């Protein structure tokens, strides 16, 4: 099947734009993906290590508030805490806006989609008043730089992130016989289990409870503190070697290198190749992807030792990825992002420094659509099954949003007939063309075009 620029932008990009021509070939898409990250430069988001001092200060301010002995001290501590939080909230509003501006204005839309895909694969949710700021900075630091790199590097980066170590309880996992456990603290299996089940081998992978346990023992020592970030603490590590999937790691002294060796072996495992291949095919092509496509992606992953640019290339050049039938439904982030791109959103349209308004316009509607940003239901990330997204109440939230948000964002709306071309190209289905003409107002016409399955599918 020949490369189709329109389909490329809809299926592997962030949708059509009235401003930017779609890519001309798979090679062009790959070249952009492996080239400089222009969108990140234009619409920056802080990396976790950059904001870590702010989070540390916030944590200390919260502690000071709790420990204040006099009313005056408590008020001062409270004011300081609120100041710090206000700064972070403003930053977070801008970062959120930038994720959408990247989608709306990038020529390298595949990178945005892959970043979202891999961030979901390595889901780390920020829970509470401090960690909730870490979600986008985590992705910016650990995920985005590796979407066209090696899977093994992304795996290493993700498990060295304080957000991941916190979310999956690793920082509180102590080797039961380690000095730091002092006979009182013990193992927490959470990260080890999710790493095998979700990040690498897959839920049906060739591992047992014993492997989970051994992996958990091997991972002890991975931790962080807010002041200095990631740390490997040998005194938390379980002494002795561990055996995972029949391979021995480590010895008398606990070393980070032994953990890295195990991560590399997991990344190179055939079960990981198949797991990742299947997930990519499901995410980008169909909930029930053709086995030939999964085989091709698995093969490329294995041949290239998990080179993700090569695996992405295999996806973009496989005939089964180019069925003209739109078999997937956009997740809310893709739906909203592609709507903003079709609406030709530019920075001045977004209330970038006002988190409350960003919430009202984008984040809360997305939560009502079933996808509160940065807060997936669990470590397995967002569901892929289309019926999970198109339930009556979630669809109601999509419909409500398309009917009102475009006007609230843009004020001056295009004519629906022109918007039809911007959003769907020249092959809109007849009923959508009819609706674009028959709607009572511009807002309604644009809403119905965005609501149409032709726009909601990819």
């Amino acid at each position, binding site marked *: 099947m020949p490369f189709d620029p329109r389909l490329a932008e809809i299926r592997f990009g962030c949708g059509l734009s009235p401003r930017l021509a779609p890519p001309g070939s798979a090679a062009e898409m790959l070249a952009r993906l492996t080239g400089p990250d222009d969108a990140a430069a234009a619409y920056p988001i802080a990396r976790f290590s950059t904001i870590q001092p702010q989070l540390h200060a916030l944590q200390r301010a919260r502690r000071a508030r709790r420990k204040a002995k006099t009313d005056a001290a408590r008020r001062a501590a409270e004011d300081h805490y609120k100041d710090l939080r206000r700064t972070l909230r403003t930053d977070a509003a801008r970062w959120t806006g930038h994720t959408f501006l990247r989608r709306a204005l990038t020529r390298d839309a595949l990178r945005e989609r892959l970043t979202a895909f891999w961030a979901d694969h390595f889901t780390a949710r920020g829970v509470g008043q401090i960690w909730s700021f870490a979600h986008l900075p985590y992705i910016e630091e650990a995920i985005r730089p590796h979407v066209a790199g090696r899977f093994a590097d992304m795996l290493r980066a993700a498990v060295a992130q304080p957000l991941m170590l916190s979310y999956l*309880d690793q920082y*509180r*996992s102590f080797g*039961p016989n380690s000095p730091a*456990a002092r006979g*009182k*603290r*013990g*193992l*927490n*299996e*959470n990260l080890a*289990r999710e790493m095998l*089940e979700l990040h690498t081998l897959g*839920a049906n992978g060739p591992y*047992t*409870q014993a492997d989970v346990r051994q992996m958990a023992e091997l991972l002890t020592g991975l931790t962080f503190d807010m002041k200095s970030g990631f740390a490997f603490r040998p005194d938390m590590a379980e002494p002795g070697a561990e055996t995972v999937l029949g391979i021995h790691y480590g010895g008398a002294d606990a070393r980070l290198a032994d953990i890295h060796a195990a991560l590399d072996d997991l990344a190179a495992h055939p079960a990981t190749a198949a797991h990742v291949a299947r997930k990519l095919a499901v995410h980008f092509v169909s909930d029930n992807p053709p086995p030939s496509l999964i085989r091709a992606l698995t093969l490329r992953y294995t041949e290239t030792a998990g080179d993700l640019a090569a695996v992405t290339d295999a996806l973009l050049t496989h005939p089964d990825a180019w069925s003209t039938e739109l078999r997937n*439904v956009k997740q809310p982030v893709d739906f909203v992002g592609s709507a903003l791109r079709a609406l030709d959103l530019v920075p001045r349209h977004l209330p970038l420094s006002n988190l409350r308004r960003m*919430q*009202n316009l984008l984040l*809360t*509607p997305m939560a*009502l659509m079933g996808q509160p940003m940065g807060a997936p239901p*669990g470590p*397995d990330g967002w569901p892929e099954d289309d*019926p*999970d997204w*198109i*339930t*009556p*109440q*979630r*669809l*109601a*939230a999509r*419909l*409500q*949003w398309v*009917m*009102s948000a475009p*006007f*609230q964002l843009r004020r001056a709306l295009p004519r629906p007939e022109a918007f039809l071309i911007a959003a769907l190209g020249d092959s809109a289905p007849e*009923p*959508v063309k*009819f*609706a674009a*003409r*028959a*709607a*009572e*107002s511009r*807002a*309604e016409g644009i809403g*119905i075009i965005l*609501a*149409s*399955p*032709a726009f*909601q*599918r990819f």
Partner: protein
Amino acid sequence: MTLTRRQMLRRSAALGCCLAANPLVTPVTLASAPSDNRLVVIILRGGLDGLGLVQPRGDAGFAALRPDSGAALDLDGFFALHDGLASLHPLWQAGQLGFVHAVSTPYRDRRSHFDGQDMLEAGTGMDALGRNRSGWLNRALAHLPGAASRTAYAIGRADMLLTRGAAPVANWAPDAALTLSSQAELLLERVMHDDPLFRDATLEAIALSATDLGGAMTATDTTTSGDMMNAMSESVRAARTGTQPETIARFAATQLRAETRIAAFSLGGFDTHSRQERNLPRALGPLSTAILTLQAELGPLWARTTIVAVTEFGRTARLNGSGGTDHGTAGAMLLAGGAVRGGRVVADWPGLAEADLYQRRDLRPTRDLRAHLAWLLAGLYGLDRTTLEAEVFPGLDMGTDPRLIL
């Protein structure tokens, strides 16, 4: 080209896509309902710590496994109820609250939330893991004579496997208001018409929004674009404050007072890996609120109501290194309602000695929790054993009747 509403309606009818054809807006007579019994299924997500909720203080092993387990209310001299459900103690005394202990689904050893919840909601055995596409409640519904589109209601934004499947189940979050002008409604129906997934969800959303129960506003001929925009602000405001357990329970009760016989929703926060003394009460609060709201709102119907709360697995018998518990095996289920034979903890108690624990770490399951669910369905709705063991809970041996309901 501009069409009048009348022309639009005629065109829509010609297309065969019209709201009136939607079963949800067709009045359902109460006489056609399958039974007067009400069932509320609550999925407790995250793995409720059964040993923490219903504490076997009479077991010599308990104190060693759970030192400093805090205040608890004595239930029967052997078990004690976690203080976090103290507000439900009067129900226990009235015989309207009971527990089943040391039960689990057939899920073993992998201890994953996702697989565990899938199996809990699918009602299947280990052999079906990863291949589940429908839930036990949905399959039970298929065997309820007279079941209609609102007989079962899934409430909340989470789309539950429990209620997914071939039988129609109404699905709505009480804060999902949808306000459309008539013209927008008709055009939407038209663009959705050829895509069954979108068409069915659109029709149902429009129908639900048009009822007093579903949303704040009703679409009328006078609804304008401006109204549609205000409606988003309304739903955004509702969403900011979150769907409270009271709201969910009140919506459930409203439906259960009408045609609905079975309601299902889920509550989260039970994955207490750390600081359980703080985190478990936080999760139990919404559960007791939901139950007490249902009791208050159902009025006389409470006497015909059975609430059952189940979770994907129990937790480790011992506390872990951070004052919490990790994913385990057997746990407890909760029953409440005027129809429940409460005031007792049903258990074939396995004991807590090291050798009695499953894999020396978890409470040992002594019965399949699906057996209890199956007997509930048999008692409330007359489902026969063959159907229950073959279709609703494939591969289950129901065993003897635990007589959970009056």
